[in-house]
């Protein structure tokens, strides 16, 4: 019996020993010249130094916009858009923007409320067909406002059941109805309106409500936001979506081992079916333009803006950037400043745009690495880089 025990130990140790071997080292080379550059900005070097420091810490590629009130915007990039081809990230790259879509859907919803097509206090049952309502564990008492503030109590679609199905069959394309099926048997986490619980379910339902009221939420996005703001590098399920030359390859570190894999195909497939809560591909410049326009221009009425800026609910999940949530916007409140915007984190992408209500400065960060599964990697982008950029822009 001792022999078997020893053999077991020896084989176990052998299996546990791993090492990696170097196959090929690529040389860095520039990928052409992009029409946007900020080399003339007096702070260019210090900005760039921070970006390089973070790309060398394991963020594969990143693109940052620092828009300081009264100064010319600074656009900077670091790292790689493709590590296979050794192509550097540049200012012409566009990005998957994950949950930033929620702010777009919120703006369309608030516009429809301003126009009288929707009433913010109405139950969602007034606007959704019975076959959709049947998918929800409960719909009575859930209002449009609850969906906007994510206080409906509905649980998230993207839970372990979905992840399990996704990991077994990533080629499957889901309809919004199929996605909602994942919450059908889950009880509400709280009574509607009682508490904020971040869940994509709310914004998928809002996209279905917009479809019902406006005909098509994709066209509404185009007609109400993308065209009026001239967002020429913003795409939402239109034209050649989601295959764009300017889209960087996207990566994840599945085992948090410092070894990255290309998951661009997987990410494109996912963004092709998540609607309402995700799915916008845009340039960093366009995204910053959108978020600034919400608060500085006439995209929304003063009444809607006041509602966004004053009616916050508490975000209790400590791992998120924000400590409050408004109607489609995350709020980072501290004693001396308030930033409002949104963050997004999905397979192969991590990003955020925040606008400072006091100084009217805006910071946008876009990357081609997904950090959703690892808190340490999330902290690198959503906490450390954020704190550094806030200091820089002051």
């Amino acid at each position, binding site marked *: *019996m001792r022999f*078997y025990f020893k*053999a*077991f130990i020896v*084989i*176990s140790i052998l*299996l*546990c*020993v*791993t*090492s*990696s*071997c*170097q*196959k*090929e*080292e*690529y*040389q*860095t080379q520039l990928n052409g010249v992009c029409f946007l550059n900020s080399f003339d900005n007096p702070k260019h070097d210090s900005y760039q130094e921070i970006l*390089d420091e973070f*790309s*060398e810490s*394991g963020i*594969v590629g990143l693109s940052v916009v620092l828009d300081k009130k009264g100064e010319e915007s600074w656009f900077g990039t670091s790292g*790689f858009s493709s*590590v*296979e081809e*050794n192509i550097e990230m540049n200012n012409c790259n566009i990005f998957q923007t994950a949950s930033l879509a929620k702010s777009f859907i919120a703006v369309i919803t608030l516009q429809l409320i301003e126009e009288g097509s929707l009433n913010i206090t109405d139950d969602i049952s007034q606007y959704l067909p019975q076959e959709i309502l049947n998918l929800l564990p409960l719909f009575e008492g859930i209002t449009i406002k609850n969906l906007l503030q994510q206080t409906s109590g509905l649980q998230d679609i993207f839970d*372990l*059941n979905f*992840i*399990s199905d996704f*990991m*077994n*069959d*990533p*080629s499957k394309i889901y309809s919004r109805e199929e996605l909602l099926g994942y919450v059908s048997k889950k009880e509400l986490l709280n009574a509607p309106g009682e508490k904020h619980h971040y869940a994509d379910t709310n914004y998928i339902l809002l996209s279905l409500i917009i479809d019902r009221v406006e005909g098509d939420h994709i066209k509404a996005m185009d007609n109400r936001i993308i065209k009026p703001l001239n967002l020429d590098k913003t795409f939402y399920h239109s034209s050649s979506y989601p295959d764009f030359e300017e889209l960087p390859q996207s990566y994840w570190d*599945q*085992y*948090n*081992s*410092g*070894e*990255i*894999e*290309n*998951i661009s195909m997987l990410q494109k497939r996912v963004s092709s079916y998540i609607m309402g809560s995700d799915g916008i591909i845009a340039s960093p410049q366009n995204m910053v333009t959108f978020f600034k326009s919400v608060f500085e221009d006439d995209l929304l009425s003063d009444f809607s803006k006041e509602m966004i800026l004053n009616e916050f609910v508490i975000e209790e999940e400590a791992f998120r950037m924000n400590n409050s949530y408004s109607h489609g916007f995350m709020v980072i409140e501290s004693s001396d400043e308030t930033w409002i915007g949104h963050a997004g984190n999905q397979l192969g992408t991590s990003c955020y745009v925040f606008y400072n209500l006091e100084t009217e400065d805006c910071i946008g960060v876009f990357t081609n690495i997904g950090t*959703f*599964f*690892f*808190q*340490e990697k999330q902290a690198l982008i959503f906490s450390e880089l954020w704190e550094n950029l806030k200091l820089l822009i002051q």
Partner: protein
Amino acid sequence: MTFKQILIIIFLILIVLISKTQGQEPSSTKKQDFPFYLSYNNHSWAFPFNSIFRLNPQYPGLTTGIEINYRVRSKSKLFQTFELGGFLNQASGNALYFNSNLAFRYSFVPAIHFDIGLGLGAFNSYRINDIYRLTESGNYISIKDRGVSALSNNLFLSLGYNLSTAFNKELTLYVRYQWIASGAYWDLTTIRPSGLLHIGIRTSLRKN
């Protein structure tokens, strides 16, 4: 039901079954017959007792192992398995694993038996894509995937049918559900969950 609750129930079943065998006839004195088994299995990325019978898509694998008997009675057996296996999963990644399980077998009727086992092992995961590592010079280099090793816990439940009479040879056909939880994975799940549905045969290495 949480995974912890499931484990407690399995432990309780194991204790009850072992205690039930105490009144049976004494241990066999025959020599080890080194049962050897080979199974085909389908892998799923799944939490325990979820998607047990998921067969589409197919992510095939093979497992082979031997059993070492500790105590043999007329209706029951306490034994340890040493097994080596692997699967090809083009969705969530391939893996090789080595496990050892302490297991208990109970025969309800002479030809049909039920196994329950718990154990530890080593699980080596391989990616399905090329992988790259950042160098000190700030470039990414392509590296060969040697896999990511992690300790694993696993449990299995089997139902076997003894075909010895029909074949005049020690031969058992069994189906087994095995669940392996390996570490070194996402913060979100903390483990990489693997569900394996096996169909296999078991025979003896010793000639009759």
